[in-house]
């Protein structure tokens, strides 16, 4: 029966993650955005919470509690702290979940223990390609069978590339011929970050500056057949949908943070002897922000619940992803507007919210739950 209340366990997780976000993440949000380097101590502390490990299989030493919905609850709180750091903290899942779900036993034994060890090991997923007409289900990166190995060629961007990572999951189209632009099924490969033919060039982006990302050039990268995930096209689509929900939830958390600072600022800032929040022009804007955030969150939850139930969820994910992208940008922009001139200044959160939340549609697969 319909219910909007997190379970006791979920409520505890939300509380724990929120406190971590408030005490550890938010205070380092601005400095990380400026430096572009997430503090190792913070990543280590987050690792100890076991947020990703909790979703990995028990047989490998994980918690075995995989849930898109619980993942969305976690992602929102982390994103509330800081979106870039949230994605850095969640990055081990980019390798961990695809391998756990679809990796051969030998691959699981090779990859998962590292992610579940005592220290933080980041993960990477290479999906997005640097073209305006990028189609997530038809990447131009190709994988060709070559004896008992595959040869991967292509160009990827927005690939999380934190220091200390060992593996990157590369999504490609399987190709028979030799021409470019293969139209085969989606395929995923676990590639060593130091593989021959793989070059990572650090990116400079408008937003998410606290998350190191790279453009990956793959030129004749050879990977053994064993490194291919036994995931069908449909499996990978579901995996991508889980990523969309994770990103949407993270963005909602970031939007909520922007809303909250705008709300608090509007209560303090005075014009003509009155707090600007007492003016309907500002108050109604804040009301709309609150309504839209709640509406988008319920869409995210509903899609996550459908994913957890194993139901066909592509349409619900599409609605949730689109609505969140739209809402997050409007909320961030509204927060800047409420702050007025101060919204443009890097001393305050809203300008970062706007940089982080614009272009959300290109953030495919920066997180997985």
């Amino acid at each position, binding site marked *: 029966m319909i*219910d909007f209340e997190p379970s006791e366990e979920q409520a505890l997780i939300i509380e724990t993650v929120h406190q971590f976000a408030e005490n550890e993440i938010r205070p380092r949000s601005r400095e990380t955005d400026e430096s572009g380097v997430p503090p190792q101590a913070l990543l280590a502390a987050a690792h100890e919470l076991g947020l990703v490990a909790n979703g990995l299989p028990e047989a490998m030493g994980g918690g075995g509690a995989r849930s898109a919905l619980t993942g969305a609850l976690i992602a929102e709180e982390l994103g509330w702290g800081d979106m870039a750091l949230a994605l850095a903290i969640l990055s081990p899942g980019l390798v961990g979940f695809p391998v756990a779900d679809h990796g051969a036993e030998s691959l699981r034994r090779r990859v998962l223990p590292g992610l579940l060890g005592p220290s933080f090991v980041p993960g990477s997923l290479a999906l997005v390609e640097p073209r305006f007409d990028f189609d997530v289900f038809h990447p131009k990166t190709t994988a060709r069978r070559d004896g008992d190995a595959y040869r991967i060629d292509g160009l990827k961007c927005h690939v999380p590339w934190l220091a200390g990572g060992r593996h990157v999951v590369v999504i490609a189209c399987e190709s028979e011929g030799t021409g470019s632009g293969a139209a085969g099924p989606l395929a995923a490969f676990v590639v060593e970050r130091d593989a021959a033919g793989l070059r990572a060039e650090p990116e400079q982006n408008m937003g998410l500056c606290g998350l190191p990302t790279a453009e990956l050039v793959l030129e004749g990268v050879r990977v053994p057949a064993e490194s291919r995930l036994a995931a069908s096209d449909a499996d990978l689509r579901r995996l991508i949908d889980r990523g969309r929900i994770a990103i949407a939830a993270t963005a909602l958390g970031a939007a909520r943070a922007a809303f909250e600072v705008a709300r608090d600022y509007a209560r303090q800032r005075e014009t003509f002897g009155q707090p600007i929040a*007492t003016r309907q022009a500002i108050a109604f804007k804040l009301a709309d922000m609150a309504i839209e955030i709640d509406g988008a969150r319920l869409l995210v939850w509903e899609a996550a619940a459908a994913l957890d139930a194993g139901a066909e969820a592509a349409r619900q994910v599409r609605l949730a992803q689109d609505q969140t992208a739209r809402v997050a940008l409007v909320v961030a922009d509204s927060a800047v507007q409420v702050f007025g001139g101060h919204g443009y200044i890097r001393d305050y959160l809203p300008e970062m919210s706007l940089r982080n939340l614009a272009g959300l549609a290109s953030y495919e697969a920066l997180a997985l739950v």
Partner: protein
Amino acid sequence: MTIRFDLSEGSLRAQSHYRQVALDQMRPISRKYDLAEHALPREWVDYWWREGRFGAKGGAALANDGFVTICLQAEQLCWGDAGLYLRMPTPALGGSAVSAAGTKEQQAKFMAGFREVGGQPIWGAMAITEPHAGSDAAAIETTAEFDPATDEWILNGTKIFCTAGEGASTEPGGFVVVWATLDKAAGRAAIKSFVVPAGTPGMQLLGCEKKLGIRASDTATLRFENCRVPKDNLLGRAEVKKQEAAKAGEASSKDSSKDSSKDKGFKGAMATFDASRPIVAAMATGVGRAALEFLIEELARQGVVIRYDAPPRERTAIEKDVIEMEADLQAARLLTWRAAWMMNKGRPNNLEASMAKAKAGLAVTKITQKAVQILGPLGHSRKLLVEKWMRDAKINDIYEGTQQINQLIVARRILDYSSAVLR
């Protein structure tokens, strides 16, 4: 307890039952009573009185998800026809007021007629708005004066925009709940509500409004001229509390759950909106879904199938619009169900009820207008119902609190401002 979106068996049964009712009983006469404005939709009214009001066969008793089920019913029936929904012989908002603020005796007395099997259909209604005071309900000028000689209240004033006001004021057994002030100088604290039974001398039906949409609904103007009702027809207490007069009302009321609303006068009356706004939001969702479903089906008939997995750059303008309409509609629906679910839990839902109403009212206004726009001549033609749904949808962003009133309530809640601070 956990977050989940599957409906209970009872809810699902009600959902499919009322969809069938909408299809069989409402859609076939939808255009007829849009054109025959103000005419009594006899076949619908009789069906509802005879059969419809008893619910799904086997009696779908309202379980602990009762408010969600009520919202599903409202959505399905307004998917059928919003005007006919408003014309159903039910206690409607008058009943909500009696349930929220009335004593057991009052509830038994005034609601009895609605539980009777057989007989003639009757209606309940609520009369708040006056020609010069709508959203600012505290500014009403209809007066109630006590006559100790006869132990009666004497009502004087004019009410407009009274939904179901024709049936409720004229068909014996029904009633109108009328808001009136005991003392204009005392502000909202002096505003009380009175049950005026249909046919009471001094209550006169002046006529019904000609409207943009929901034309099957009788939106009445009622005049009260020395209209006398017994002392016990007052809902709540007669005292005018001074502290209530001093404090801000409406959205500043922190304890607006249905359980704590008795004897709170103006605040108590306002609290009935926390129950009615999710229902109006559900009604809105029904009209919006009617238009959106038709649009998608019509596009499919023309060979245009919405691709949910097309990359953003390849989406057509129509696909982009339809996906946005679907997302807005579903967000409105989920906000509505959340507010209704909170009602079931007995939790204060003033904020969530207004969020649902604000979102749904605006969403379906845009959705139905966009449907007309996309369908072009088909959208504009009276041969189809799309243009009617556009006209019907708009009222949802106006009644039971306009978009702006609901924004105001949400803003006060999130800012923790009273109505005196944020006006």
